[in-house]
């Protein structure tokens, strides 16, 4: 799996190390075990997925986390992304609105030794105001909306990463940055360098 991620051009050693450290199969439903390390998203029930490994790695890289940073994840799912984040910082907060998923993720993370992750069952729209501000936020953007409270809870200099597209086909990432003065800017990131013109690409080779 790590080799596949590297093939995309992602060479950040800390991210690759984190991806290698977390056992993805432990976060995948039993009937998907054989595909646990394939480079595909996998269903985990309730219309949620465990993201494609490369997307997880790229989102993690985009957060540029430092030890001690506070990071919020909206949409815990299986808990896999939260586990990867703990390889960078123990201060991981994650919210899941679907109760069975939240409960299962809480149990799974504890069982696997990710004891610093704090899981909450609730509406991620409102963020986690008691723990704000956050240096990094990952949010699943289901219907083309970024909750304003999350933007507010982003620390100056913080980065928010949003996968864009339906859960089974994330097509790009969005990065929201808050400057030191509180100004918010956003960027659209293709997961890999993507040239939309056939001819241009041919010319570049």
């Amino acid at each position, binding site marked *: 799996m790590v080799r596949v991620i590297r093939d995309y051009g992602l060479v950040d050693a800390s991210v690759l190390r984190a991806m290698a450290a977390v056992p993805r199969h432990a976060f995948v439903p039993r009937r998907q075990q054989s595909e646990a390390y394939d480079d*595909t998203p996998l*269903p985990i029930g309730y219309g949620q997925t465990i993201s494609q490994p490369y997307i997880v790695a790229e989102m993690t890289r985009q957060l540029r986390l430092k030890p001690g940073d506070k990071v919020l994840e909206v949409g815990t799912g299986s808990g896999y992304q939260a586990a990867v984040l703990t390889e960078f910082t123990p201060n991981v907060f994650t919210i899941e609105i679907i109760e069975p998923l939240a409960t299962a993720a809480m149990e799974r993370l504890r069982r696997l030794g990710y004891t610093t992750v704090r899981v909450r069952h609730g509406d991620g*729209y409102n963020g986690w105001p008691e723990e704000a501000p956050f240096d990094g936020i990952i949010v699943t953007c289901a219907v083309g909306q970024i909750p*304003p409270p999350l933007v507010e809870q982003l620390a100056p200099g913080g980065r928010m990463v949003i996968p864009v597209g*339906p859960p089974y*086909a994330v097509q790009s990432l969005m990065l929201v940055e808050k400057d030191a003065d509180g100004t918010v800017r956003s*960027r*659209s990131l293709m997961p*890999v360098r993507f040239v*939309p013109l056939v001819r241009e690409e041919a010319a570049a080779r």
Partner: protein
Amino acid sequence: MTTSPLRARAAIFLVALAVIVFELTLIRILALRWWHHLAHMVIGVALLGFGVSGTFLATVRRKVERDVSGWLAYLSLGLACSVPLTALVAERLPLEVAFLAWSLRGELWRIGLLEAALFVPFLVGGCALGVALLDSPERLGGHYAANLVGSGLGAVAAVALMWPLDERGLVAVSAGCAWLAGALLHARDGAARLISIAGTAIATALLIFTLPSEPALSPYKMLAQARLAPGIRTLARARGPLGHIEVVAAPALHYAPGLSLRCTVPIPPHALMILNGDQTSAIYDARERADWAFMDWTTSAAAYALRRRPSVLVIGAGGGADVGLALLHDSPRVVALEMNPQVIALMRGPLASRGGNIYKRPEVEVVAREARGYLAHGRDRFDVIQFPPLDAFGASGAGLLGAQESYLYTVESIEAMLDRLTSDGVLSMTRWAKTPPRDELRLFGMAIEALRHRRLDPSPRLAMIRSWATVTILVSPREFTPAERKALRGFCRSRGFDLCWLSDMRPDEANWFHVLERPYYFDAARALLGTHEANLIRDYLFDISPVTDDRPYFFHSFRWRAWTHIRRQLAGQAPAFLEVGYVLLLAALLQAAVLSVCLIFAPLILRRGGARGMPHAGRWLGYFAAIGVGFMVLEIGFIQRLILYLAHPTYAAAASIAGFLVFAGVGSGTLRAGSSHAGRRASVTAIGLAGLALVYLMGLDRWLAITQGMALPWRMLIALATIAPLGFLMGRLFPLGLDEVERMGPSLVPWAWAVNGSASVIATLATPLVAMRIGFANTMMIAVAAYFLAGLAGRTRSSRAAQAGCGRERFAPGSVEACPSGWGVRGQLASEVREG
């Protein structure tokens, strides 16, 4: 058959009706569970069920002929049982089509199981109708007619029944009709058969009882996701031929798509109105005018930065958010166009107060009409036209709509909207922003095309802006003034929106707030408006060429020739860009071709060794292939044309199917069995039909345009009357050809049936694919050519056949090797592929 003709025909009518009602119900169930894109594959299999029934009956013919009535009765009862059983599988099978692009391996066996389940009732239904045609020759004309009329009326009945009945009710009607057919034939035939009637009734009723009241939705559909929210409540429900509506609310449901990241204005509490489980609009509880202020933080509000207190036309008013935006800007008059009467009834009834009574405001005029019909025949002009509501975020992004046509997103549609603007009006069109851009650039190119058709310079009449989520294109019949351009710049700056095109825009103004790797939109807009337009369209990874009424596939932007580039660039990310709807259509065609060979031709070859050695067999098999292709291409082409005329695919499919089948039934029913010179008559009819189809092709659009302004029932009648001459002639070709082939040699009959069946199935699935490439007008020419070739084939044989003097009674007992079972029903089934 010992049963009276009347009773037999009543049974045939009921079975044909049951089959088509079930087929329409299945399309609806599958569209609700997933999206419309499985329909092609499923209907292809269903049609094969009919095809295989011919081969099956050829094998067991001698047994069947001993008790035609009994077989028909048992098969009808079998159909009654298989209908709810198949519905149960279709509603409950845990298949997840959303993952097909990623993991075909995991889902393949489930697709196979679903198709096998769908195959059974159509095989049984096809066999039942086929058995009926093994009756004595003098009865066949009436039997044909009963079959076709039953099918035609079944299409109309199914649509009408979608108002009062849910899917379970529709399944019950279909199964009930099949059971009644069996009961009619068995009723006087002794205790054993009475027991089978009762037993079937109980089994069918039990199966229907186990059906869920609604199909299990894909968990990736919006409604399924919403239902997971804590405290979810269903506020209202409605259903009809246009779909299911469910209105839900929960504290954790938030919906304000595309809102600026800078928006700090509160969003009023809201409910979600979800159509067919996915298409969502919000009903905001906006009590005061100021409560709509959040809508001013979307790119859709740009038009109001240019026009003060405008009169507004909102296309697809839904929950009323765009109407609220107009009221926020003091619009003195808002026409809210909503084609679904149930949405209007909900907004005026149980949801009126929740939506701030927006549909009842004195400034708001609600019109229940499809947009193209309204645009073509109204007279009012507007300062702002808002079009259209955003489609479902997930379905749009994943290419699930790829094979779905839309007459709203065409150059002609934009021209019609421009015609309804005041001299300084503004057309505002909003789409999701995609990475890389696709639909948005295509729409921009279509606006350019529409303006050029009016001999207007597009550059100063166009503007394009984008947020992180949406792109809005503004089009005006006159040039934007410097003051307007300044206002638009101010609007964008304050909200953090990016300018993508203004005629005086500098390159350094692009790509400021939501930064892309390059200013793709500005670069593309400049290319589309300049001399590099053709190069850009040719070289772009996705198809962004303008879409017209003749090729109305706005959502289909996938290019095979770009696939290698996409794969090379994106590696494992590539499946995310695969257009699932389109690929499934291709897969369905491939599957139909393979299964035709395996299930229809192979058994015939194994059993009889083929039709080699028979003079002119090839020509006549060509005839049957040609009329199979011609029938389906013409019918699907008509459905396409009528979508625009009758304002909805469901109405278009119902009118077209009913028209073609009923009049084909009349055409075949008026033939006398064993008529002389059948080959020559077939030839003349086919050539006449080719000529008539050509006349239609040249004049149909003009004729329909003249009557477009009439009320829907009148337009329905006109559509039926227009179809009548074609359907009448089409209905005669199969029996005439069969008559001739029967004279040549009975062993050729199953081959004729097989070739015709396979050609019909393949044509059904190939027609939309061909139309995507060459347009419907050119595709319809294929039908003309097919009938012309059929005429030539028939002509050659007929003269020689006459010389040879071969002639036996058509369908003489013992002579029919395979049964032309339900060939008309098959046609109608196939055309239903387009219904979605």
